């Protein structure tokens, strides 16, 4: 039996904020949308913490994050696959590398981000939760509310499609 301590939304913000931001950025390719999502998720966490029952905190948090993301997409009435072209991997462009090897690494990063944005939403979400956020299949299943077998299938099919679009 593990000991429990209070967790505030400020702690959630500090511990998970960056992960939430990266989740949204990799799904949208847009830094403003990602920042908006972090704020929306933290608002929902603050409201929801009062009724949170100890259990899978990751599953709970990422379900909130995922729902906030989808609500935002619906509200904007657009498909989640629409990035602003010059927003793709802004971080990489801003880092101003000097060496040729750096350019080649960044170009690969851009290609991967673009390929992610071309994936059907369910596959992209599963791949990002697995490879960017670092959740287990079981945590992804809880967050997305599908069986673990479906997560397994979505991740592999997502990777297959990524491979096709990267070659």
């Amino acid at each position, binding site marked *: 039996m*593990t*000991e*429990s*301590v*209070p*967790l*505030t939304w*400020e*702690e959630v*913000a*500090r*511990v998970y*904020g*960056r992960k939430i*931001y*990266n989740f949204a*950025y*990799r799904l949208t390719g847009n*830094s403003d949308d990602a*920042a908006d999502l*972090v*704020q929306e998720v*933290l*608002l929902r966490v*603050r409201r929801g*913490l*009062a*009724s*949170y029952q*100890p259990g899978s*905190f990751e599953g709970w948090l990422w379900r909130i994050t995922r729902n906030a993301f989808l609500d935002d997409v619906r509200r904007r009435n657009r498909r989640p696959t629409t990035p602003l072209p010059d927003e793709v991997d802004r*971080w*990489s462009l801003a880092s101003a590398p000097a060496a040729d090897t750096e350019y080649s690494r960044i170009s*690969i*990063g851009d290609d*991967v*981000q673009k390929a*992610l944005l071309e994936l059907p939403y369910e596959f992209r979400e599963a*791949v*990002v939760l*697995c*490879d*960017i956020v*670092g959740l*287990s*299949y079981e945590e992804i299943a809880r967050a997305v509310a599908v069986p673990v077998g479906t997560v*397994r*299938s979505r*991740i*592999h*099919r997502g*990777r*297959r499609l*990524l*491979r096709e679009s*990267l070659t």
Partner: protein
Amino acid sequence: MTHLGEMISAYLDGELSRPEIEQLLIHLDGCGRCAADMQDAQIVRSAVRSLPLLELPAGLVPEAETELVSLHRNRGFLVGAAAAVVALVIAIAAIVTPSAATVSLEELNSRYGARASLDPAFGPAKVVVPDLAQLLE
């Protein structure tokens, strides 16, 4: 032949049971298609995982404990990052007004302690203005 496509990614992610691993490895031995599939999945998995972990824009979340952040920076040591994350969680837990919500400290320690020690990019957020906190009051 029945191919084992979906088991391949699960294998790479450490999500297969022992009997499933055995089944997959035996199959891969005699199936060029699945062996190639495995290689492709491995390449894509590494490519996505090597995307940089982006910094949060400044001011987006409440201010972190700057002393603890600078401590881990000065050490320039991965263990320092892990200790800073853990100390931050403990320090904050000790001073805040308790809410109804609880989460296991041990769970946080093991998860983020371990992750911080593996990932030099992962650490406490380094930001300044708690706009959101004011917004919420």
